[in-house]
């Protein structure tokens, strides 16, 4: 093992041992969770909280006005948007925006971080569709799929910091291999720090080996959502034929005609994703 490799491994391991510094739950998410846990949620307080984050406010306005939400008229104010989307959706958007802004950020590797983010967000939306089609509640599926690349994003962010400290770019293949190697550990670390449910943590870290996961059904849903997200973004990388033939759909009990129905919701998913 080269010296650079030893140092990089050590850097990643050090990062893993200090989770609080690495990925604390963003303030706005914690405040949102506190606010929305109240018996009666105050819309004005929620709007006030959202207003403190420009990126979050912008995303809420965008989603509220997306064709998939079918607003009866253009949504022009944040209060209107929050009322239109509801507490649960605002919370989902907040988690997504915070992930995008704080976890999927790797200076020098912006394109990779953005690609990972896009994959996570699209997978989250696809997971909802898969769950709905299978008559399952959609929330766990969405959250697990949304979080499924956070480990890779966090590893990427740490390695980008390592490069800056070393003052030299790493070999691309080695960089990729390290990201893959540390993805599950960083994913688990972040989700456990954020106190996410155990089934979501398992599914979001074990989606590649879903048959072996204690939550194989949810992990399989994440795997299928990942494939659908990949196809939606890069049909040349994964064409419809190969996508629909993937064994994960068999495992989930989704028959070929039902897979086609699922794929037929592509435009709706893209519209929500802001493509």
């Amino acid at each position, binding site marked *: 093992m080269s010296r650079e490799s030893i140092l990089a491994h050590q850097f990643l391991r050090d990062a893993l041992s200090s989770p609080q510094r690495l990925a604390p739950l963003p303030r706005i998410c914690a405040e949102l969770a506190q606010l*929305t*846990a109240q018996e009666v949620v105050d819309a004005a307080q929620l709007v006030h909280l959202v207003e403190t984050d420009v990126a979050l406010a912008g995303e809420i306005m965008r989603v509220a006005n997306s064709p998939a939400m079918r607003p009866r008229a253009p949504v022009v104010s944040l209060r209107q948007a929050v009322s239109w989307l509801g507490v649960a959706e605002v919370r989902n958007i907040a988690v997504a925006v915070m992930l995008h802004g704080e976890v999927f950020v790797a200076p020098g590797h912006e394109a990779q971080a953005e690609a990972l983010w896009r994959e996570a967000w699209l997978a989250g939306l696809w997971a909802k569709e898969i769950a709905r089609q299978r*008559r399952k*509640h959609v929330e766990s599926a969405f959250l697990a799929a949304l979080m499924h690349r956070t480990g890779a994003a966090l590893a990427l962010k740490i390695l980008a910091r390592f490069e800056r400290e070393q003052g030299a770019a790493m070999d691309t293949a080695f960089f990729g291999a390290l990201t893959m190697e540390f993805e599950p550990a960083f994913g688990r670390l972040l989700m456990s720090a954020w106190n996410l449910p155990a089934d979501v943590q398992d599914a979001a870290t074990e989606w590649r080996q879903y048959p072996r996961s204690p939550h194989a059904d949810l992990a399989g849903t994440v795997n299928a959502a990942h494939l659908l997200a990949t196809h939606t973004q890069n049909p040349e990388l994964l064409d419809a034929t190969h996508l629909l033939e993937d064994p994960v759909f068999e495992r989930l*009990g989704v*028959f070929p005609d039902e897979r086609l129905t699922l794929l037929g919701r592509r435009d709706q998913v893209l519209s929500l994703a802001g493509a």
Partner: protein
Amino acid sequence: MLPPPDFDLICLGSGPAGQKAAIQAAKAGFHAAIIEREAQVGGACLLSGTIPSKALREQALRYLRTRSDAGALEIALRGDAPLSALLQGVDAVIASQDRYLKSQVARNQVELIRGKGVLLDAQRVEVQRLDGTRAVLHAPRIILATGSRPRHVPAIAVDHEHIVDSDSILSLSYMPRSMTVLGSGVIACEYASIFAALGCQVTLVDKALEPLGFLEPELRAGFAVALQALGGRYCGGVEVERACFDGFSQVEVTAKDGTSFKSDIVLAAFGRVANLEGIGLDRLDLRISARGYVEVNPRFETNIPGLYAAGDAIGPPALACAAADQGRRAALAAFGLPPPADTSLVPTGVYTIPEIACVGLSPSEAARRRIPILVGRADFREVARAHIAGAPAGFLTLVCDRSTCRVLGVQVLGEGATDLVHLGQAAIAASAPAEFFVEQIFNFPTMTEAYRIAAFDVLKQRGEANLSALKL
């Protein structure tokens, strides 16, 4: 001309009806197959209905006991408690049942075929496999045992997010703070009491004036009292017009009279509907009832020769135990074999908190049919075992023939009711009189003591001259 048959019998569906039909056929020496779309054997009973909901109920009972044992300590479920944690162990139960059922099917040399079965005609089924391949199978006898799914109504759009049904409620990711349950039948009442026991604020809403309308008034009243004690409430006489997410944090249910109910989540529990779509019925002139069930004669044969149906596909009572019996009888009828002794004794079990069960003649039915009866009653407060178990609320009523004291019916409300009712069922089947429960020696302390107390009550009412000769 049709090719030689691949099987003597094909069952569409592996729930209790299909599974038992195929095994019955195999035991009679015939070659049977089951076509099942899910990976597991057992149908909705195992995967999304009977078994998982009972597992959740068990967790709710544990939670209630812990709270009660803790006395002064304040114990409450966290608002964000994942429901999956409460359902812990249910996957293991499903897996073990699946293993057992599969081994039973294999042991009887029944062929289990994974795929969607579509009828091409009354003797041929096209199997669409998950890998997209298709095969046509031929059998001179086919049993439709496709089961049921939650009934949806046009005014209430189930989105599996804010408005769930009895399938998607089991994958809910969190414990809602409040829930409106639409309906007043078995599923509605079971979930209402389970979630109320878990600390959720439950409102049961229906146009029926009382919940569980098919039960005796005393059982209905007992359930209503228990629900209230758990913090739930029943709003009867309410005709629901619509339910929609208010776009913010609550789902609003609006009644025709303008009343509205707001809660975190709505459970639409309007009963179940037969799974008959996509199985090729459009090709056949199969008679379907106005309620959407396959019509069958007492031999479970449809209007199309060779085509039989059993289980939830033919409608009420839609109980797993009845479906299994129907499946066996349908298979015997399909092969022209004599049916087992007829029994109209089907127990009803309602897994509310506490449980409710009944079998045989009810006092209301006796009054309607002008059958002279005596009704003996045992209050669980008189039963030592009920106190030991910490569940002294409940009762058992024994319905007996007025002149002979022969046991005709039993109704039970209380923990363990669904098991306890079976002793009464056996007495009815054996035409035993009330004295049977007094003369026999039963373990003590057990809940069976309730039968003895109720039997004494019957005998006292008859003015039994020689009560002293009986064991007291």
